[in-house]
């Protein structure tokens, strides 16, 4: 079936099956900033925004985003340079494989709570695993971006 949606503010079309994941649609279209992690909706590596809400694109079926407004890290980095700056300046990463998901979670957090406490940020980021950093620098980055 033909999927029509908007990705990063641009019209987007792709041929998909009823069982194709949004993750595979995005990556097949060259948007490889969204990474594949656990593929069961636990690790958060594949987080994107659908209608402004963070979702695990590995579990989100492509037909469900028909007509939706989707944002990936590539588009968000252009739209919100302050978000990228916060992760760069607070060293909110090491290996970087979880970083696109953390960035998208931070972008989603900005819609919900401003400003947030560290505890709230930590709860918000619970769905985005990081094995490298111990999280403190990621929380710092998110707090910086949120204006805390």
């Amino acid at each position, binding site marked *: 079936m033909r999927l029509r949606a908007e990705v990063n503010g641009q019209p987007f079309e792709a041929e998909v099956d009823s069982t194709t994941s949004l993750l595979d649609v995005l990556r097949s279209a060259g948007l490889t*900033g*969204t990474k594949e992690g*656990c593929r069961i909706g636990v690790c958060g590596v594949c987080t994107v925004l659908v209608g402004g809400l963070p979702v695990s694109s590995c579990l989100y079926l492509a037909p469900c985003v028909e007509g939706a407004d989707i944002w990936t890290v590539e588009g968000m*980095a252009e739209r919100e340079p302050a978000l990228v700056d916060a992760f760069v300046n607070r060293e909110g990463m090491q290996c970087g494989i979880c970083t696109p998901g953390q960035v998208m979670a931070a972008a989603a957090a900005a819609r919900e709570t401003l400003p947030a406490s560290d505890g709230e940020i930590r*709860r918000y980021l619970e769905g985005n695993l990081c*094995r490298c950093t111990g999280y*403190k620098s990621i929380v710092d980055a998110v707090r910086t971006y949120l204006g805390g």
Partner: protein
Amino acid sequence: MRLACAGARRRPMTASSLPAPPAGVVDASRVDARAKASGATLYTADLQPDGTLHAAVARSPLAHALIGAVSTQAAAAVPGVVAVLTAADLPAGLSGRRVRDTPLLATGKVRFTGERVAVVVATSAGAAEAGAAAVEVDYDELPAVLAAAAALAPDAPLIHEAPWRYDGAVVSEGDHPNLQSQVDEGDRSEVERALAGAAWVVDRTYRTPAGHQGYLEPQAWLAVPSGPGAVRLWATTKSPYRLREQIAQCLGMDAAAIEIEPVPLGGDFGGKGAVGEAPLCVTLALRIGRPVKMVLRSGEDIIATDGRHPSSIRVRVGCDAGGALVGLDVDGLFAGGAYAASKPIPSVNLHGVADAALGYRLPCFAIRSRIAYTNTMPKGHMRAPGAPQAVFAVERGIDELAAAAGIDPVELRRRNLLKSGEADAYGHRWPEARGVETLDAATGVVMTVPPPPGWLAARGVAAYARPTPAPGPTSLRLEREASGRLMVEVPIPETGTGSHTVVRQRLAGALGVPPASIEVRQGSTGTLGYDPGVGGSRVTVGMSTAVDQLAEAWVAAGGDGPVSVDTQPGDDQPALAYCVQVASVAVDPGTGQVKLLELVSAVDVADIVRPASHRLQIDGGALMGLGFALLEDLLEEDGQVWASNLGEFKLPTAADAPALRTVLVEGGTGVGPANVKSVGELTNVPVAAAVANAVAAATGCQLRQLPITAERVYWAMRDREAG
């Protein structure tokens, strides 16, 4: 029930109150930060040249079985499938980092659940996986040997027929045929005599589970034919030069025909030194003549790569009436899994076990570390291999000895930690040993996070000493690009630690140029000499030493390149670095749930090349230690990995992380011109013992098995009440 801090000097030297970095050190942002934060960084799984075929493997559902008929027709009929191959279709070479015992595909029999039996190549990853699922295999099940002790029993079923015949084997025909390797140090009879005369002795056995490194980027390979018999390979490897050699050995190729290309890693922690499916992908690409890519699914990676060894470690330790240790015996038994191929060091063992005797003054000691072949996932190296297990055992043993002797556990350690100029158990004299200083720094921190009302609370301490190695061989190249920028080529991938940024910073300092004027690029194995890869806590010390030589060569060449250096080990001596951690825990008396409220990590440091990277290694290590202490267990039972995905195999989340307090014990003497002590494999090690010691202090229950789950604590408390 609280850890006594009486007499400890208060040294509130937190990281945030440290003086500014030394003059000339500019702590600029990471070289890779912006690309990573904007999704532009390409990892192996993101690469896909035109015409790429995808490979997936059919895996054994059984732990030990003879392979009968294999039917590939149904797989071959799946739309998009190009080839279905079994061991009979492929070269018979074996692969490994030291011991070469692993076939490309299971040959004759399968030795663990998850072993690759057939490989399917297709035009899409989905078609390859569908094909792999359609491969039909007749198995004749054999009795499986799942635990190390059972494997080394006299009449145990054999996992390999003649393991001593494998290239690189460290066992001989007289050994038990299920033995992978054994390290035996010290004098056990001397320890027996010492313990017989000791005032206090404990004899306990501690257990830790199988684990996984937990990197979030599953292992992946992309092999691209580049000429007759030649191939370029992008791989999730931390040791490109060694991988090239290992592929060449396995496939009988000339190593020069294999070029390992640069690509960053999405985490490593020891797991990405394995050979993995690299030889399989290379042989498929050469055979078919097209690029072949294989990306493991996360669940495959968890059940079938090279995780952490489960352990059973008996500790016997005694002290005299004054609390001086008289002897230590550590006897570790590890289930090594079906193949020994993932262990790189010459002993094919885990150096952390032998290192567990380093930190204390010991009149005598005995260390034995046996690894058995078992019908479980092959085990490899994970961040300070063997040390988290062995230090958990020894540091629990020290605490149990303190309890028996009626001596405060901090005081018992203070009396016995090695001092500068003293010799360790192996007779090596360390000019600097700052265990007591590090202990005092750790216990001197005022911990402030309160326990939830009604919970039991206490603190526990644990110590670890690790040598920072002398710099080994590596190679670097520097040139000026047409744009005028300097470009330094390094032989190691950026695994995440910040190594490339450390290189830039050190080079900028040595040349007196702004860091931003230097670009750091990973070279391919075709462009640089040799490097053993990332590991063994050697990157910062090795790279900074080589960078200094590179800068000298650059200046000698008149500031114009290109220049290359291939460094060899010099006369630098290793240095000893201590890490002492204090865990403040709360235990819910109703459920047994343990909450780590606060974790102090005191780290013995010399100079710090890049404080931001250094701190992240400390924090990330500490949280990995928390996972080992409280959460992570692959649940290897009945020949299956039950925690076979990240939903079941729990990694710590942002909300699990306690307040991480770091105290840097400054002023140490490190290694090499940069005067550094390694930090990457320190803070993940003592956490588990510190937590368990705190739980013991809070509840009176001696937890001797990891992870410390609510269930284990609950039943330990109930058993204790029942007497």
